[in-house]
């Protein structure tokens, strides 16, 4: 039964995909793409309403019949209300999501409700996970969907689903949105090897007593630089945004090399590299990543970290 249902759902999703093509986000949900079915309790309600009508007809009781008709019409009205709960709701999603294998990816869906009606109990389903949220009249709301991701790699989600059972839960209305979400699943950080520089400690000079805190000049601001390195005084004087350069940062960069991990299997190598990226990043020292066919020049900051993690995620997938 459930496999039949699954098959029907898949057919419908594929059909919606063909029918509407790729949607440009944010999208306002139109009535013709909202589907609606009774829930289990809706079917039960239908059976009871049918029994009520037959009882009224059989006993030839006009009052009972009127009551049964009123209840049935109420069900029809509720059906419309359920459909309306999604209609003209605007939805957007962060198109790129970063995650580590074996942990969760967090999707952020942004609802905008331009109408004068509160939208309650809106459920977003994405990658077999779901999140629930509200959007009050003339306001927005954020719904987080947290889905576990097991495999390293770049995953593309082509479709997500908005769904609601409000009000009463007799019916559920849903719609498919064809929005592209790319999930970069970096390898799970693990490994036993220490950073290459730590192993070659004797030869280096940059990590001696002068330490991280030695100020050695200013350089231009770039996104992703830790806030505590910002030259706030320069900015306050009305100058350009600048970053204080420290001698350790300016020092010789760390190269995280694929070739340094000879003899391990691919995923273990990637995991080790991932751990090194995170360690180097938290040590706030410049690092570069060298993978077969891909090289990321040494740098620091959040943008650089993401670039490295995404490169690890995309490794072997022919991804640029």
């Amino acid at each position, binding site marked *: 039964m459930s496999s039949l249902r699954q098959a029907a759902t898949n057919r419908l999703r594929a059909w919606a995909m063909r029918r509407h093509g790729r949607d440009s986000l944010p999208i306002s949900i139109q009535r013709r793409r909202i589907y609606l079915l009774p829930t289990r309790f809706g079917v039960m309600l239908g059976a009871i309403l049918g029994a009520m009508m037959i009882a*009224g007809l*059989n006993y030839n009781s006009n009052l009972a*019949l009127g009551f049964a*008709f009123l209840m049935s*019409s109420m069900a029809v009205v509720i059906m419309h209300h359920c459909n309306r709960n999604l209609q003209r709701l605007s939805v957007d999603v962060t198109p790129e999501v970063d995650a580590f294998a074996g942990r969760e990816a967090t999707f952020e869906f942004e609802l905008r409700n331009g*109408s004068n009606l509160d939208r309650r109990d809106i459920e977003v389903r994405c990658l077999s996970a779901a999140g629930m949220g509200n959007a009050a009249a003339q306001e927005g709301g954020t719904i987080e969907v947290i889905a576990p991701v097991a495999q390293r790699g770049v995953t593309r989600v082509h479709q997500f689903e908005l769904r609601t*059972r409000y*009000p009463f839960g007799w019916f559920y209305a849903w719609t498919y949105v064809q929005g592209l979400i790319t999930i970069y699943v970096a390898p799970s950080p693990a490994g036993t090897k220490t950073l290459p520089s730590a192993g070659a400690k004797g030869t280096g000079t940059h990590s001696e007593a002068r330490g991280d805190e030695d100020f050695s000049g200013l350089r231009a601001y770039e996104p992703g630089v830790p806030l505590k390195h910002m030259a706030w005084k320069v900015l306050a004087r009305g100058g350009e945004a600048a970053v204080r350069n420290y001698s350790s940062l300016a020092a010789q960069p760390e190269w995280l090399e694929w070739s340094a991990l000879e003899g391990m299997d691919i995923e273990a190598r990637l995991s080790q590299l991932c751990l090194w990226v995170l360690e180097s990043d938290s040590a706030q020292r410049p690092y570069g990543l060298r993978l077969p066919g891909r090289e990321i020049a040494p740098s620091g900051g959040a943008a650089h970290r993401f670039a490295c993690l995404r490169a690890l995620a995309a490794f072997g997938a022919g991804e640029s």
Partner: protein
Amino acid sequence: MINERVSYEQLLGISGCLALALLAHVTTLPLWVFAIIVACGLTRLWLARSGRGAPPRGVLIAFAALVMPLLFLRFHTFNGLVAGTALLSVTAGLKLLETKTQRDIYIITLIIYFVSLAALLEGDSFWLLAYLIGVCWLTTATLLRATSSGPAPGWRRSLRFGGRVLAQALPLALVFWLLFPRFAAPLWQIPNDSKTAASGLSDTMSPGDITQLALSDEIAFRVRFDSAAPPSQERYWRGPVLDYFDGHTWTRSTSGIGGAPPPLQPQGPAYRYTVMMEPHQHRWLFMLDWPSSWNQPRAELSNDYTLMEPEPLSRPVDVVGTSHTHVQYSEPLKPRTRMRELQQPQSRNPRTQQLAREMRSAHPDDMELVGAVLGMFRQQPFYYTLTPPKLSDNSVDEFLFDTKRGFCGHYASAFAALMRAAGIPARVVTGYQGGTLNPYGNYWILRQSDAHAWTEVWIDGHGWTRIDPTAAIAPERVESGLADAVNADDTLASRWQRKTPWFAGARLRLDMLREIWRERILDFDQDSQRKLLEMLKIPEPDGQKLVMVLGAAMALAFAWLTWQIHRELAPPSKDVTARTYARLCAKLAAAGIARKAHEGAEAYAMRVAQERPDLADTVVALCRHYSSLRYAPPSARITLGQFQAAVRAFRPKPRPRLAR
């Protein structure tokens, strides 16, 4: 969401709704059923209050196994309306006891809906309907609170929402109700519940057993005459005829029922009228003496001229009939019937038989003898009272010679017994007499207090002749607070009611409303639907046309509903310029280029021009018009009307599909 545990508050709400719905059954269900349900509800609430869940499954099954046989012992079936309701109610109680999750709340809600409907199958008052709709309103609001995720919406909000849903449902429900085809006969035989004690008349009469006649104000039936009503002394509504006498009790003999009624020759005017019967759990219909035609195809006249249905009346019935108040029997009495109508036990009431023989020898003519007996009632100190003394087996003897106090039953019984003893065929007829005119609705009300008994004697050459011996009593001997004797023109109204005329007036007005409710709502049937279609100027209405009209009306109602519900999404903007611009954007969105939330008119026009060069000129011009209407000084504008016309005329073709 479904598997969420219910809170104490949710339980309290749904239990309250169930209790209110069951309250509508308080007169029909046995009290112990209520006791069980209340016990279940209170136990569950107490458990929830102290933070515990439902009792273990074993306890519930054991409890159910205990209660269900009890129900079966009481009703012997689960098929009837009362038994079915009892079963459903107890199930709801048990469900309440085992309520764990929202799932159970849904099921209890469905039971509440059905129990409410069952109450409407039994009762038919406006107030019951209003009450039950109120209960369902409350139930729906409770369900909304229970099924919303996150914090439950407040009571006021939920009730307002429920009320709004009900109001929006009303037009569609009305269309359904008016036009849904009704069946002439039920789909299957309705199980006949052994109802509460039948009120009104029965087919036996033993006045000697009654020491206090309670006069009930309950309405037996209403009558509307097509033209003028017959005078009061001719308004006798014929019920069962009692023709077997054992000296104490008059009974309806079973042998008299079969066979066609003897032919009658009507005399005087014919009266056409409609009797609106209340259900009374007997088979007879009360027609004006003597009925000649009626519109109930299944009803038949018994050979003593009582109209009988094949089944007891369990629901209101309207009978259109014609009667003549004066008739003449054209055939002589058959010897067998004469034998039966003369029968009485020889061993009982010896003094009466002695009196009858004496009077017979003094008055050989039948009508003279009747007059003499009526004269005796008038001249001797006979009293009319509702609290007569109890009589023994020789009831007629005791009444005529000792107590001389009684009501219509005593007089009819004694008179018929005297006639039989004197050799004149006689029988007792029970029914109703008189009635009150409701001037507001121009119909007559016959109450249980109008119940009456009179006699018929066979006069050769004339046939059965109605004699009402109670009418012979002198008015000054009418006792016990009765202002008017039964033969007087008015009903036996209570003293208080006569002292406060406005109360009587209000009562009659209320009854008129009840009568309208009955005629327009309760009796709405295929005939009324045909009249409705005739009013809509549909020629030769039949079932097929009815269904077509229903379809059309439903489509209209649906369209209205859709408009009504979706209108609230975006209330029409007061700003015509903005509205016209919104229409332009909607047209473009339909053509495949929707305006993005951040795009202004100019930027949007540029993007459209890029994506659809064929629309570029028009769209850029239109967007520029919008901008100038919004922001430019008045002199530089095109008029709003021109802008509206241009937008109306704009019909972008949809984007050509790209092959993929």
